[in-house]
């Protein structure tokens, strides 16, 4: 058992007179210890991987292939690979930070302790809002899949049910998280397992078909059919598919043997989904060619499955798509509520925000604070905009995490003793930071604008509400 002491002493008060909660004395493999109170760690490696993969796989496979192919042609494969590479460059430094500070709140925690309260507030509030944008994006995707089910059943609706269904599920998920005390983690693990099995079967068939084993053969096409630049803009768009690994860090306080399981879960989930994404795009574009794939939009994968395996294939992918987008939305809402808790623990949001409901034992204020705004965002129905704003806010956090790592390594405070150290320091975190900030440049102006406004509002909130709070560790 590796005992670590955490010496970062938070101080100051917010406008309501609340001070940050004291830091724990010791972090062990099984618990976080405050005086004679222990917080049990209960999530194992499988649980951690399921959180990462479950959050990510919904978007990359079931929503983006059509959109990405439309933007970048066959080279969308490369866009996904670039996204995966950047995610990996960030996941490695994040792993080091997480093993040094295995506490709830993930990126927010690392940055507020490494770089100070102002950066922390921008990232923390940005993370909370970013997760809402991400959840809204998954819910709109879910709406597309649910409407495809209606189409499949031959039910003609006089209006598009996409947004209505998204809203319905958003409200249902929030209510379930507040009132449900079922064993959601076990369900999440099972869902991820089923998804991986279905996808592996489907993709294996697709790859064999694409190389001509079943006589189908590939639709010959130029790789960079839309030119080189769209490869990067598409990478920026689809980066939303790689947001999940940092969600593992938001529950870092509950992971068993954090020194071992956190790096494995984060890096492992990024590697696994990257492989799945790249193969998926390859198979999808091989089946139809980028132009036709683009016309199918959000549910393009259903058509690909129909092309390979007929109606049963389409039904299987429809089902998988519903499950995947649902689990991604669920994971994001839960992470958003953890982010609210981390902020309120540090007095950057009112303590009331992380209050626990006496009847169900769930944080109803935090969950409502996540679920409510999500509905507003879903109502816009803007898939690409939601995805990009979510990516923007996360990329800011990713870039700053890499910077925080470099800052901490250079100052080398006594309490900073990660059990996992990033390979290739300082190149990996430096490149990770540059790549994260660089990718933002390829986004639409509207997304960048909304993202900047969110950051600005976050900063002003910090100045107004908690200007006196200091969270930085002794350096």
């Amino acid at each position, binding site marked *: 058992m590796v005992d670590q002491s955490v010496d970062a002493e938070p101080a100051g008060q917010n406008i309501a007179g609340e001070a940050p909660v004291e830091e724990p004395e010791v972090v062990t493999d099984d618990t976080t210890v405050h005086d*004679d*109170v*222990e*917080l*049990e760690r209960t999530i194992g490696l499988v649980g951690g991987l399921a959180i990462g993969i479950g959050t990510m796989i919904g978007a990359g496979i079931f929503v983006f292939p059509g959109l990405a192919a439309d933007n970048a042609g066959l080279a969308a494969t490369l866009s996904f690979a670039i996204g995966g590479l950047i995610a990996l460059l960030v996941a490695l430094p994040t792993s080091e930070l997480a093993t040094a500070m295995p506490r709830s709140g993930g990126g927010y925690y690392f940055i507020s302790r490494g770089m100070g309260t102002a950066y922390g507030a921008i990232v923390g509030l940005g993370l909370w809002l970013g997760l809402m944008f991400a959840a809204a994006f998954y819910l709109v995707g879910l709406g597309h899949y649910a409407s495809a089910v209606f189409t499949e059943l031959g039910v003609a609706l006089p209006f598009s049910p996409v947004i209505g269904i998204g809203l319905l599920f958003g409200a249902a998920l929030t209510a379930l998280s507040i009132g449900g005390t079922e064993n959601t983690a076990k369900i999440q693990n099972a869902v991820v397992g089923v998804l991986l099995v279905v996808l592996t079967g489907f993709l294996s068939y697709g790859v064999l078909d694409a190389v001509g084993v079943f006589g189908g053969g590939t639709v010959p096409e130029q790789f960079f059919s839309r030119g080189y630049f769209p490869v990067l803009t598409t990478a920026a768009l689809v980066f939303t598919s790689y947001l999940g690994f940092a969600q593992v860090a938001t529950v870092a306080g*509950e992971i068993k043997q954090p020194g071992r399981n956190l790096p494995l879960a984060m890096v492992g989930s990024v590697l696994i989904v990257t492989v799945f994404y790249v193969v998926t795009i390859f198979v999808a574009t091989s089946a139809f060619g980028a132009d036709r794939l683009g016309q199918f939009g959000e549910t393009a994968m259903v058509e690909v499955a129909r092309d390979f395996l007929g109606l049963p294939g389409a039904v299987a992918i429809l089902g998988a798509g519903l499950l995947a987008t649902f689990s991604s939305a669920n994971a994001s809402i839960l992470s958003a509520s*953890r982010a609210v808790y981390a902020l309120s623990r540090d007095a950057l949001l009112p303590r009331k925000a992380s209050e*626990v409901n006496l009847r169900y*034992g769930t*944080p109803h204020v935090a969950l409502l604070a996540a679920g409510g705004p999500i509905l507003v965002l879903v109502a816009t129905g803007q898939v690409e905009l939601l995805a990009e704003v979510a990516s923007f806010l996360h990329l800011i956090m990713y870039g700053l995490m890499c910077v925080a790592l470099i800052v901490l390594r250079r100052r080398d405070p006594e309490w900073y003793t990660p059990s996992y150290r990033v390979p290739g320091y300082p190149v990996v975190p430096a490149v990770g930071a540059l790549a994260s900030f660089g990718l933002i440049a390829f986004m639409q102006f509207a997304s960048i604008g909304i993202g900047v406004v969110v950051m600005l509002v976050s900063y002003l909130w910090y100045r107004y509400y908690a200007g006196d709070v200091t969270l930085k560790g002794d350096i």
Partner: protein
Amino acid sequence: MTDRPSILVPVRVLEGESVPEGVPELLANAHVVLLGYHVIPEQTAPGQAQMQFEERATERLEEYETIFEDAGATVERRLVFTHDGQKTIDRTTTEHDCLAVVVPNATGPVEDVLVAVRGAVGIDRLARVVAGLFGEMGVSVTLYHVAHADETDEDAETLLAGLEDRLGDLGLDTSTIETRVDRDRDPLDAIVEAADAFDTVVMGESDPSLSTFVFGMPGDQVADRFLGPVLVVQRGPASTDVATDGEE
């Protein structure tokens, strides 16, 4: 009083579970590891529950601590917020090297104790619990063994006689010890039936198997049906490691 056996007393502290009547007297000679725990749903971070409930939980635990101390025990107190109560109980048992975990049910004054003996494995820990707790209480102790088909009566008697000697060595008055052997029965049913005439049961923990996975640990099953306090003697640290490793 030389060697107080460490006994874990798990209490779901915020769900109105308290220390049942008779249990503090039962553990008067023990070193009580009082584990107050609160199980929270996965949507909630343990720290979140701590922020809100720590004060109230600590208050209650302090009350319970006093009750045990007044009865004569030495007490160590832990408060844990967890998603998984069983994991917390198992971990605390190992960390504090507890010989037994008590399933707290109410009882009157303890006058007679049933000790269910499964086999020679772990018999030393069983003896330390029985002798440590009841050595100076003047209760009557019945050693009980359900023999299986390929076990002779002599084998069973040797087993119980060995335990009796060991208890004598540890300071228990052997004149208060009786032995009893049954055979060709389901051990669990037999123990529950025999337990009816006793105030409390001491028994060993089984190895995890398919049936314990489906029906729960025998200790808990006996406690459910017996309705009095059951002391479940834990396997030694070496074998506990094997049991917890299988998880990943």
